[in-house]
């Protein structure tokens, strides 16, 4: 098991830069998510860590050793792909034992290791079955078994659940995370699904256009997005963006939208504007008839415990997540308040979150 340190990692394909200059650390035993839309460079980053692509520049340290220009075989890493690549002519036991046999491990020891892995994955009863007739879940378990049987320093997983249907994916995500909790192996996992990343990860790196936008725990990234891209990409519905024009001085504890003063965390740098955006998560919008800030209800969506209310407000469309017990009617105009300590302020031109007393520790600590 190992710590992985990435410094200034860059990859160019001809004139296209897939990864600009990534720097982050995966601690020993962490379940680490590389998250972003397709084409953001997350898979290229994973492949460089595994040694399947060589970086244009930058360093990759695995367990204290710099391996950036070393071949995959010298890195002691196991890779799990989206399409579980099994040997169709071999049975489950032979598929799992293959990496050990090819290393020349004695037979008795191979048997012991395979039995141990089968027990961890709960597939002892199918060891002698051909892989052809297995369900999707069992095939994925066998593929995992083949990866973990070697006890490598780290696991690289490229959207391993992407091919499964929604209900089963949720189940496998839990199983995979439980497996990680038992083994404690350093794992780097690529996904474009923000919920999967939040659900499974200890840490998340959010990438966009080859650039690391933010790095932190799921809750930090959700509560204090560093950029508008992250604020929009994480959370469903996404963070609301209320656009306004103005200048907000350092030390201010409120912004003014139209005639309404909206309290927010103390600003620790000046916001020169002129185009600014107030960011508010849907669950931090409250319907309050006393508030002078008004919105007209366009739609409501019942979700069991909560409901999503879509409103048209002076600074843009707002989605509010409120308890489903509250009765609301489409077409009504209601007052809105926002939970002050959760608000973020962005500079629209750069998309960057301005430093406040709430996010200072996350972004600069």
């Amino acid at each position, binding site marked *: 098991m190992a710590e992985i340190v990435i410094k200034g990692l860059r990859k160019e394909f001809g004139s296209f830069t897939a990864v600009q200059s990534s720097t982050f650390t995966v601690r020993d035993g962490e379940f680490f998510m590389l998250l972003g839309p397709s084409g953001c460079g997350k898979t290229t980053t994973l492949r460089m860590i595994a040694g399947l692509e060589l970086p244009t520049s930058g360093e990759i340290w695995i367990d204290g050793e710099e391996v950036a220009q070393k071949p995959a075989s010298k890195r002691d890493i196991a890779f799990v792909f989206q399409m579980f690549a099994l040997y169709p002519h071999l049975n489950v036991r032979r598929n799992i034992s293959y990496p050990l046999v090819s290393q020349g491990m004695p037979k008795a020891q191979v048997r012991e290791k395979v039995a141990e892995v089968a027990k961890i994955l709960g597939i002892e009863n199918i060891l002698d079955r051909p892989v052809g007739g297995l369900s999707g879940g069992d095939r994925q378990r066998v593929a995992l078994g083949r990866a973990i049987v070697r006890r490598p320093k780290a696991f690289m997983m490229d959207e391993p659940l992407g091919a499964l249907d929604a209900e089963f994916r949720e189940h496998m995500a839990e199983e995979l995370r439980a497996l990680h909790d038992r083994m404690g192996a350093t794992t780097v996992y690529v996904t474009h699904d923000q919920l999967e990343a939040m659900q499974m990860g200890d840490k998340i790196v959010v990438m966009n256009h080859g650039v690391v936008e933010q790095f932190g725990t799921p809750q930090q990234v959700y509560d204090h997005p560093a950029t508008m891209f992250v604020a929009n990409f994480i959370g469903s519905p996404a963070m609301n963006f209320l656009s306004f024009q103005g200048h907000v001085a350092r030390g201010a504890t409120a912004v003014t939208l139209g005639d309404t003063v909206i309290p927010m965390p103390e600003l620790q740098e000046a916001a020169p504007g002129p185009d600014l955006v107030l960011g508010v998560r*849907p669950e931090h919008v409250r319907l309050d008839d006393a508030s002078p800030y008004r919105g007209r209800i366009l*739609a409501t969506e019942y979700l069991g415990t909560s409901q999503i209310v879509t409103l048209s407000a002076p600074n843009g469309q707002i989605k509010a997540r409120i308890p489903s017990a509250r009765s609301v009617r489409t077409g009504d105009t209601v007052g809105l308040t926002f939970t002050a300590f959760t608000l973020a302020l962005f500079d629209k031109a750069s998309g960057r979150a301005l430093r406040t007393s709430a996010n200072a520790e996350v972004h600069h600590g």
Partner: protein
Amino acid sequence: MAEVVLSGLTKSFGATLALSDVSLTIPDGAFVVLLGPTGAGKTTTLRLIAGLDRPDAGDVRIAGASVMGDMPAQRDVAMVFQQYSLYPHMTVRDNLAFPLRSPILNRPEAEITKRVAEVASVLRIAHKLDNKATQLSGGEMQRVSIGRALVRAPRIYLMDEPLSSLDAALRAELRVELKRIHQDLGATFLYVTHDQVEAMTMATHVGVLDHGWLVQFGTPREIYENPVSTYVATRLGQPRINLLPADLFGAARPGAAQIGLRPEHILQGDGPEARVIRVEHLGDQTRLHLHLAGHDLITLSDPHTPLKSGEMIAIRPENPLWFDASGNRLL
């Protein structure tokens, strides 16, 4: 727009019973969603109403009259399929106008132009009207396909998972859009899906299908709060309802085999001690995976809970649902 009444609809394909004695009233102006997994009989129901298949038994009445003797075109219904099927050689405008130019409708061109413009603006494809259908993105093609149904004012819109091929963001947008169209037009919709979020957010009524049987029909709130069985209870709600042995928390309702607890129906603070297995921070909510007397359960917590895995918390049920050994609800 019209009321649609299904009575005793039954349909088999060879040895497979697809629909079994389904009776259901779709009130005029309702948005009815049929919910169920693959093979539950959702699409078969739509096809029987549209006249694309004939039932083995039963009747379909639209606006009070049986349509069993009518051809699909005579039934005056509009259907949107899961796979958009546009005419690739035509522009978006001509694709949208096509149903209105058909021999049965044959509307005047001035009216067609007006109608196409209205629908295009609702679906936000007005700027693409002169594009060929093949020059559109997947989401745009599906909107044109929905638009081709909306240009008409049929007695009912039948929609077969129209959003399932779209990405999550567009799906969320079109959910709100379809619901707004329903409210603005006062139209009658029958919409089938296996996506519980679509069912809960759009429907005025949800029908839950299980292997061809209609097991419950009611508002989304009724289905969520008062499910008739464990099958229905597990259809709605994320995370899923916890189904546990009835006596896990002490005295059970007589005759109960299982206690059903939605994650929000587990209170923290007193009761038996459960071990925290994992704390899942999803941003707006935090899920606690718990282990109690050999059983796994999931509950919700404050997003910034200080709880960590390995710790113990006391939990007790509130407003539980009780189910008998065959999974039926005890009232």
